[in-house]
Every structure is written in C-alpha cells, then in structure tokens.
C-alpha cells in the first residue's frame, strides 16, 4: 500500500505540535540519528487486511525533551520510564491515525519501545514503504511505515 507523504506529514506534525507544543518540520534531505549515541524507537504493529508496523526513531535527547513537555517538568526530572511512556504514546497516536488511512478493520497493537546505540529494526518479510525525516527543535526524528508482504 502506498501512503501519501502529505498525510503522514500532517499526522506527525499535528501530534507533535498539539500534544507537545514543539516545533517540528519535515525535511527532504536524508535524516539520520547521530551515530554512536543512544537513541530510542517506538513501534506499533498493525494487523488485518494490511499488515505492518509504524515506527518512530528519535535520539535520546529528543525523547527526553518530549517527555519533559508531556509531563510538564524539567528535562533533568524526567525518568527512563516516563521517556518510554512518552515515545510509546507518540507512536500509538501516529499509528492510530495512520490506521484510519488503511482498510477498515485493521487493529493496532500496544506500543513497544526499545533503546540502544546504532541498532537496526527489521520485520521478517517486511519492507519500508514510507519514510519521512523531520527536524524537531534542531534534532532529527524519523517516522517509518513498514509493510509485511
């Protein structure tokens, strides 16, 4: 299934500006997470007539900034658990909204969040169909949709 980039961009920017009150903008240049630094990924699986996953990749520092905004506290006060909760919920909102673009009846999983340095996420039999790069408060964020074929 082909996803319209404008739809995905609108979904992502609406969520980040409305919920987090952070400036975020899609960029056409290739966006990459800083190598050798800790980053986090949120993932939601979608099952039904269309099967795949929605993932958000963020540097650790951007998740911390987002969690601080969500919880209304300073970045120093944010816990690891609150960072995972924040990225999980951001991914949940993104996947839920993307699900409305899919055939009726597809269901989304609960979010999972992983973290590490220079890792790669794969879905067996899956391929990335849509990938958008964003810059948020000077930091990169990647939204990717993987389809299981």
């Amino acid at each position: 299934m082909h996803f319209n980039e404008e739809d995905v961009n609108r979904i992502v920017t609406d969520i980040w500006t409305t919920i987090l009150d952070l400036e975020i903008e899609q960029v056409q240049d290739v966006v990459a997470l800083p190598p050798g630094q800790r980053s986090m990924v949120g993932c939601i699986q979608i099952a039904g007539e269309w099967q795949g996953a929605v993932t958000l990749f963020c540097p650790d520092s951007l998740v911390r900034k987002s969690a601080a905004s969500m919880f209304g506290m300073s970045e120093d006060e944010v816990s690891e658990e609150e960072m995972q909760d924040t990225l999980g919920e951001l991914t949940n909102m993104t996947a839920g909204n993307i699900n409305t673009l899919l055939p009726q009846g597809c269901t989304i999983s609960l979010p999972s969040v992983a973290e590490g340095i220079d890792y790669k996420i794969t879905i067996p039999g899956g391929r990335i169909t849509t990938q958008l790069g964003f810059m948020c408060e000077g930091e990169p964020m990647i939204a990717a949709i993987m389809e299981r074929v």
Partner: protein
Amino acid sequence: MKILVVDDSKAMRMIVLRTLRQAGFGDHETKEAADGKEGLDLVHQWAPDVIISDWNMPNMNGLEFLQALKGEGFAGLFGFVTTEGSPKMRDTAMEEGASFLITKPFTAQSFQTELGPTLNG
C-alpha cells in the same frame, strides 16, 4: 462532578487532565486508572459521574470496560479518547452506549464541545 480518566499511558492521563483544566473544567474532582479493570474497581469505590477512557489498553480494553459498566447499569457519561476514529469504531462506541469519541491529538475545544453540556450545567 467526579471525573475518572482511564488510560494506560501516564503521560496521556496527564495531558487529558491538563486539557480538562484548559477547557475550563479544572474545578471538578478527578481520579486516574491505568486500564479498564482498575477503572471498574474505582467506579465501584468512587462512583464517578463522567468517565473519559482510552480504547486500546491491556488487561481490560475500553470497549470491554464500557460493556461491563453498562451491564452493571452505569448511568453516567462515558466517552472515549482514542487514537483511532474510524467510522466503524465510532459506530461501535455509540451502539455500546458511549456518548462521544474524541481522537488524539485533541484540543481543549474538543473537550469543551463534548463535555461542556454536562460539566457546565
């Protein structure tokens, strides 16, 4: 009035509570629950007038929570705040007795529109 906010994300519960304040409903009493099962226990103990619930939750999801409440004769206002707002989900929610379905991300205006008639009265 007593408002119960049910969501497995602590971050989202905080945002719902913040949005309630922004919508002008900050003077109502609130409590939180992390899933439908916890929510049902709180309903028995606390008897809220209004329930704002997520749909996609572990242990007992929002729809199961609503069905359990209706089975017990809950007569308060129940609405979903969820990431999915497909026509099918909206129809299902209304058929089961929900009063509204607000999709995330939401604004204070969404809350004012759906909850105003009850909470302002």
